[in-house]
C-alpha cells in the first residue's frame, strides 16, 4: 500500500513532466470522449427510435458535436437584467470542473494481469496510469460529486427568475438525497476490498475469484445489490434520465439552465456528458474490476486499456438505453425512491456484508449467521414500515375533513 | 524546510477572530451561523496542527467528532431559523428573542 511509485524517489523535473503529460492527456481524452459520447447518444437513440440520427457532419455524423459547439459559440449570449452576474458566470464552471477532477482517480490501464502490480513504465519511471492515487481515493469521488451540486444550485438562483430557482432547488435536493445512497453503496465496496485507494481496489478485483473462473469483481464480492444501488443513485446524481425531471424541456421551461445560452449552456451540457463518462468509469473501477482482465498476448497494458473501454462502453450504452426507453420519474416518486427505498436497502445490505465478514473472520458458520442477519433485517424493515404507516395515518387523522396535505 | 507550526496557529487564531467579529457584527441569523462555522473550522485547524506537532492522532479524532456535532448543530439551528422566519418574515437575530420562554 502506498501512493504512486512515481514519487517514491523524490520529485525531480522528469517526475513533474510526467505528471504534466498525464494531466494534458487526461484533459484531451475527456474532451474528445465527451464529444464522441454526445454523438454516440444521438446516433443510438436514433437507432432505437428507428431513425438515422445525425449523419451530415463528417463521416457518420461524428463531427456533429463539434458543429453544435461552433454554433453555440456564435450565438448571442446575454445575461438577464436581474441576474447576479458574478455567480451567473461562475456557476457553469462549478459544474464543469468537478467532472474533470472526478476522472483523476480512475485507473485507466496498467499491468494488472497475472498478478502484476498495476504499473507501467514510462521512460524508466514506473507509475500508475491514473492522474493521482490519494490514499482516500474513492472519498475524493464523493467529494467531487458533492461540489457538483453547487453548479446546479447557483445556476438557478443567479438567473434571477422564479422557474430556474425552483428547478435548481429541486435538482440540488435530488442530488443531495442520492449522495447518501451512493456513499453507503461505496462503503460496501470499501468493506469487501479493504481499501479506499482505487488502484488497490482494482488489484483486489484482479485476484482469483470465488470458484476459480468467476472474476473477483466488486459486483460479486458485494453480492450485486450495492452495484444496483450505486448505478441507480449515480444516474440520479447525474440528472440523467429517468431522473432528469429537473432539466427536461417539458418541465419548468428547461429547469435551472433556462437563462443560459451559448458558451455557458454548452458548458453545462458538456459537463453533464463528461460527468456521465467519469461516473461510468467509477462504476467500472468499483464494481467491474477496472482494467483487470486476462492478457493473452502482447503487453499487459494494451489489454488493460481494451478491457477498461469495453466495460466503460457497457455503461455508456446503458445510460443511453435508459434515456431511450424509460419514462421520467415524478419528483415525489424520485424522493421516495432515494430516501425510503435506496438508503434503508443500502444500510441493511452493508450490515449484512459486515455480518458475513465478521462471521468468516471469527469462524462462525456462514450458513447460520447470514440467515439470522436476514431475519433481523426483515424484522427491522417491517418495524420501519409499520411505524411509517402509523405516522401517515396519524397525520391524515389530524386534518380537517376536506383538507389537503401540504 | 521552515517550521510551519506557528504560522498555522496564527492563521487559525486569525480565522477565529474574524469569525468572532462577524458573529458580533452581523445581524442576519444565517450569516451569524456561517460565522460560527468559521470559528469551528479555525478550532479544527488548531486541533489538527497540534496533533501534528505532538505526533498524536487524537487531534484528528477530535476534529472528526467536532465535524459531526457541527453538522447536527447546523441542522437544528437552521430548523429554528426557518421556524422563526416563516412566522415573521424579515426577521433578524434580535427577533429570535421570541424563543425566550
Amino acid at each position, binding site marked *: 500500500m502506498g501512493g504512486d511509485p512515481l514519487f517514491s524517489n523524490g520529485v525531480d523535473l522528469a517526475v513533474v513532466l510526467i505528471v504534466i503529460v498525464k494531466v494534458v492527456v487526461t484533459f484531451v481524452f475527456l474532451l474528445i470522449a465527451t464529444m464522441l459520447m454526445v454523438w454516440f447518444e444521438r446516433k443510438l437513440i436514433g437507432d432505437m427510435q428507428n431513425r438515422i440520427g445525425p449523419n451530415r457532419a463528417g463521416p457518420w455524423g461524428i463531427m456533429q458535436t463539434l458543429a453544435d459547439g461552433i454554433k453555440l459559440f456564435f450565438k448571442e449570449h446575454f445575461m438577464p437584467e436581474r441576474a447576479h452576474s458574478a455567480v451567473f458566470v461562475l456557476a457553469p464552471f462549478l459544474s464543469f470542473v468537478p467532472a474533470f477532477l472526478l476522472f483523476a482517480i480512475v485507473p485507466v490501464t496498467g499491468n494488472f494481469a497475472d498478478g502484476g502490480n498495476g504499473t507501467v513504465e514510462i521512460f524508466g519511471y514506473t507509475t500508475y496510469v491514473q492522474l493521482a492515487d490519494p490514499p482516500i481515493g474513492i472519498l475524493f469521488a464523493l467529494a467531487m460529486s458533492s461540489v457538483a451540486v453547487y453548479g446546479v444550485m447557483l445556476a438557478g438562483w443567479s438567473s434571477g427568475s422564479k422557474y430556474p430557482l425552483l428547478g435548481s432547488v429541486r435538482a440540488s435536493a435530488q442530488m443531495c438525497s442520492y449522495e447518501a445512497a451512493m456513499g453507503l453503496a461505496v462503503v460496501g465496496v470499501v468493506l469487501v476490498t479493504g481499501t479506499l485507494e482505487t488502484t488497490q481496489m482494482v488489484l483486489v478485483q484482479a485476484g482469483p475469484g470465488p470458484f476459480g473462473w468467476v472474476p473477483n469483481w466488486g459486483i460479486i464480492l458485494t453480492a450485486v445489490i450495492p452495484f444496483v444501488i450505486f448505478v441507480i443513485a449515480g444516474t440520479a446524481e447525474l440528472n440523467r434520465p429517468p431522473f432528469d425531471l429537473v432539466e427536461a424541456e417539458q418541465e419548468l421551461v428547461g429547469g435551472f439552465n433556462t437563462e443560459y445560452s451559448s458558451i455557458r449552456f454548452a458548458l453545462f451540457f458538456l459537463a453533464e456528458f463528461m460527468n456521465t463518462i467519469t461516473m461510468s468509469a467509477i462504476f467500472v473501477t468499483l464494481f467491474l474490476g477496472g482494467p483487470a482482465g486476462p492478457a493473452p498476448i502482447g503487453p499487459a497494458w494494451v489489454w488493460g486499456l481494451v478491457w477498461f473501454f469495453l466495460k466503460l462502453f457497457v455503461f455508456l450504452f446503458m445510460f443511453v438505453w435508459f434515456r431511450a426507453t424509460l419514462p421520467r420519474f415524478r419528483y415525489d416518486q424520485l424522493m421516495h425512491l432515494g430516501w425510503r427505498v435506496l438508503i434503508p436497502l443500502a444500510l441493511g445490505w452493508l450490515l449484512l456484508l459486515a455480518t458475513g465478514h465478521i462471521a468468516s473472520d471469527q469462524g462462525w458458520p456462514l450458513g447460520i449467521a447470514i440467515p439470522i442477519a436476514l431475519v433481523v433485517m426483515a424484522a427491522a424493515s417491517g418495524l420501519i414500515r409499520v411505524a411509517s404507516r402509523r405516522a401517515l395515518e396519524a397525520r391524515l387523522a389530524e386534518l380537517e375533513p376536506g383538507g389537503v396535505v401540504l | 524546510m521552515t517550521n510551519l507550526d506557528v504560522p498555522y496557529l496564527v492563521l487559525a487564531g486569525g480565522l477565529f477572530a474574524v469569525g468572532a467579529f462577524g458573529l458580533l457584527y452581523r445581524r442576519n441569523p444565517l450569516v451569524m451561523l456561517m460565522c460560527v462555522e468559521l470559528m469551528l473550522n479555525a478550532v479544527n485547524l488548531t486541533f489538527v496542527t497540534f*496533533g*501534528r506537532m505532538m505526533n498524536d492522532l487524537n487531534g484528528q479524532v477530535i476534529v472528526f467528532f467536532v465535524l459531526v456535532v457541527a453538522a447536527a448543530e447546523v441542522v437544528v439551528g437552521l430548523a429554528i431559523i426557518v421556524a422563526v*422566519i416563516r412566522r415573521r418574515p424579515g426577521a433578524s437575530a434580535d427577533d429570535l428573542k421570541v424563543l425566550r420562554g
Partner: protein
Amino acid sequence: MSVQLVVFFICALIALFGAGGVVWSRSPVHSALSLVATLFAIAVLFLNQNAQFLAAVQVIVYTGAIVILILFVIMLLGVDKLENLADEPLGIGFRVAGGVVAVALLAVLLAVFFFGGRTIVTGKPAQATFGGTSTYQPISQQAVSNPQAGVIDTADVPNINLLGKQIFTQYILAFEVTAALLTIAVVGAVVMAHRSKQVQPIPDEPESLDSGADLAAIDAAGEEVREA
C-alpha cells in the same frame, strides 16, 4: 522553499479572504460562497498536514452538505435584504464594541502563539495513542523517534486505517453517542419544520369569472370608451 510552504501561503490567503468575505459581504449568498472558499482552503491545509481523511470529510460534510443546507434556506426564504442599522437596539455602539472585542481576542491569541511559540504545548501526549509514549517530546525536536507512537501516517498503514482503529476502539462510546445525537438532531429538525395545523381547506367553489356583475361593469366601461 518547499511545497508545503507554498501551499500553506496560498491556502492561508484564500482562507483569510474567504473569512473576510463571509463577514463583509452584503448578500448572504456571497457570504456562503466565501465560506465555501475558506472551507476548501482549510481542507487543503488538512491535506498539507497529512490529515487526508479529514480533508475529504471536510469537503463532503461541510461544503457538500452544511453550506448547501444554508444556501437552501437563504434561497427559499429570501433572507436577502440588507440589514438596517436603525433597527439595532443599541445603535452603532453595539458594533463598535463587537469590533473591540474581536481585536482584543485576536491580540490575545497572537500573543499566545508568538511569544509562547513552540513551547505552549505542555504535558504528555495522551496514553491513547498506539504504543503510547511515556516521555514527552518537546516540539522543537520534531522527532519521530518512536515510529508507532501516535503516528499520524506511515508508509505502511494509511492515515484512515489508524483513524478508524482509534475511533472504533478507544472512542467507541463517543462515536455511538454522536450517532444518537445526529438522530436526535434530525428528529428535532423534522418536528420543528412540521406544519400540521396550517392546512389549507379546499374552497367550496372556485370563484368563477362569469358573475354577471363583472361583465356588466366591463360592458359599461367599454361603452363609455366608445362614446368618448
